[in-house]
């Protein structure tokens, strides 16, 4: 292992800044970014938007035509100064789309392949965390898709990286396995103190996991902001999934209703959501996603509907997008919490909705992202 000038502690608090340009045939990647030093940064965009190209440059697997890349005070790449730290000296772990396990090593050999001495004490902890202890003597070819991904994640973590890149680590997994692993990665990224960059084209994955979001389109970065802020931007509705535009809300489990099998989730002091019962203990934090199309509005609280989640909210913003002239996008506020709603323009006009008006938000459905 090459010795590294920065200690792991110092580098754990270093942000990544990059500015790169690369031409690949007809495709031009042009990105400038500064990413936070901690938490999960999601890079989101449709396939072909340049996410993976960007990731490969960060990992050192590709060199851009022009560019600079800096992690904390370490310059990893500077094409002008002809500086380029090779991939194996960057200490940037990568979990690839396919697990890419080495077929001629057992699981144990794969896990320890990149493990420096200073990380050996973490071996037991990480295999425990990943639940792969029983797989250690297996040959990669005999693992299921989900198992192989977990081993790949463990292998990257054990290489003691100062930054972890994940490139669509759930692609090709079926529904339940995907959910399981997603939940798992979400928990993991909160437990390990390594900044993570997570690339995906799936809004659900991104909103479950990211704290910060980078939106890419046609090789360019069109937005880079904290997830909550970015999801509220009407001008990005199309890029964020159009019809599937949604809000992410964090809550705390306050009560389980055993009779109806429901869980009460506190959003803040005076607002609660009732969701299908989950096993998370009282007090645990939860992230939920609510589609804009799943929030209806009433002018006052009403007992005449089946909606049991009724939240008193204020309209913060209203806008009709040129791409869907029949509807109105609304941003509602519950004190410090904001979420989106979408109505037809007709009902909005008939209800005389306007910015500042008090309304009751009727929440039709909530999806639980992770706990």
């Amino acid at each position, binding site marked *: 292992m090459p010795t590294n000038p920065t200690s792991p502690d110092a580098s754990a608090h270093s942000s990544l800044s990059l500015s790169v340009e690369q031409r690949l045939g007809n495709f031009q990647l042009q990105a400038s970014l500064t990413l936070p030093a901690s938490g999960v940064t999601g890079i989101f965009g449709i396939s072909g938007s340049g996410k993976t190209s960007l990731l490969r440059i960060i990992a050192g697997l590709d060199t851009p035509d022009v560019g600079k890349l800096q992690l904390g005070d370490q310059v990893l790449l500077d094409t002008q100064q002809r500086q380029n730290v090779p991939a*194996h000296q960057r200490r940037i772990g990568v979990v*690839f789309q396919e697990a890419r396990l*080495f077929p001629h090593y057992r699981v144990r050999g794969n896990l320890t392949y990149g493990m420096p001495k200073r990380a050996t004490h973490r071996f037991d902890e990480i295999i425990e965390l990943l639940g792969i202890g029983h797989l250690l003597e297996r040959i990669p070819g005999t693992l299921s898709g989900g198992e192989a991904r977990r081993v790949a994640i463990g292998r990257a973590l054990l290489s003691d990286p100062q930054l972890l890149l994940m490139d669509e680590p759930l692609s090709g997994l079926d529904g339940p396995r995907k959910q399981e692993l997603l939940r798992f990665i979400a928990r993991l990224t909160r437990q390990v103190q390594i900044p993570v960059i997570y690339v995906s084209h799936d809004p659900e994955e991104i909103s479950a996991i990211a704290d910060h979001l980078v939106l890419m389109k046609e090789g360019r970065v069109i937005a880079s902001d904290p997830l909550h802020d970015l999801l509220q931007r009407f001008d990005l509705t199309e890029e964020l999934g159009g019809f599937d535009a949604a809000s992410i809300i964090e809550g705390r489990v306050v009560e389980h209703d055993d009779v109806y099998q429901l869980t009460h989730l506190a959003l803040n002091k005076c607002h609660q959501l009732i969701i299908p019962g989950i096993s998370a203990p009282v007090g645990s934090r939860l992230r939920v996603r609510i589609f804009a199309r799943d929030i209806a509005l009433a002018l006052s609280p009403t007992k005449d509907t089946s909606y049991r989640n009724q939240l008193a909210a204020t309209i913060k913003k209203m806008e009709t997008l040129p791409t869907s002239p029949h509807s109105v996008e609304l941003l509602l506020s519950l004190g410090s919490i904001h979420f989106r709603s979408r109505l037809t323009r007709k009902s909005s006009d008939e209800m005389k909705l306007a910015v500042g008006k008090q309304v009751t938000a009727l929440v039709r459905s909530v999806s639980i992202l992770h706990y």
Partner: protein
Amino acid sequence: MTLSPAEWEAIRLSLLIGLAAVAWILPPGIAVAWWLARHHFRGKALVNGLIHLPLVLPPVVVGYLLLISLGRQGVFGQWLYSNLGVSLPFTWQGAAVASGVMAFPLLVRALRLSLEAVDPKLEAAASTLGASRWRVFTTITLPLAIPGLLTGTVLAFARALSEFGATITFASNIPGETRTLPLALYTLIQTPGQEAAAARLCFLAIIIALLSLIASEWLARRTQQRLQERDAY
């Protein structure tokens, strides 16, 4: 069947020269195969053609070319002799050089195919885990290409054992020095009344070839198993 001292000598020389030939072509063979498998450059077809020339050229031509380059009067031969005191023609080392050159393309060919089949994505993964290019090559690329390496080595060994034309041209047919099995057989055929001895050598040649094939088969299977049982470090 007991073997005469001359027969033993021929077998010993054949094995010695065959092994020496394989030993000296392995390092450059691996390097060249890797280079061809992983790099694209101008004139690759030409380089590839040059490497394969011994396969298609008459062996005598190769022997002759060796003689004029490595012979005592040759460009490199002169340098070797005056600086290192090494003279290759008419020695068993010279025979090993000649049969090695003839076997080189077979080694490179088999190994290159195997190296090309190794997924570069695995190599990239290894480098993100902190492995230097050398470590990637020795722990990922080469181990995964072992089947090709073994096939290539066995083919090259068999070719070196049976090499005749280049050897007799460059190293001559000297009993106890360069008279390998094929050369001994040739000598016997040229001698009236030695038909029975020739038949014996012919039989021996078949036995040795068969044994080396079986050995390689066994080795390949064993390495495959070992490879799968191996852990890092």
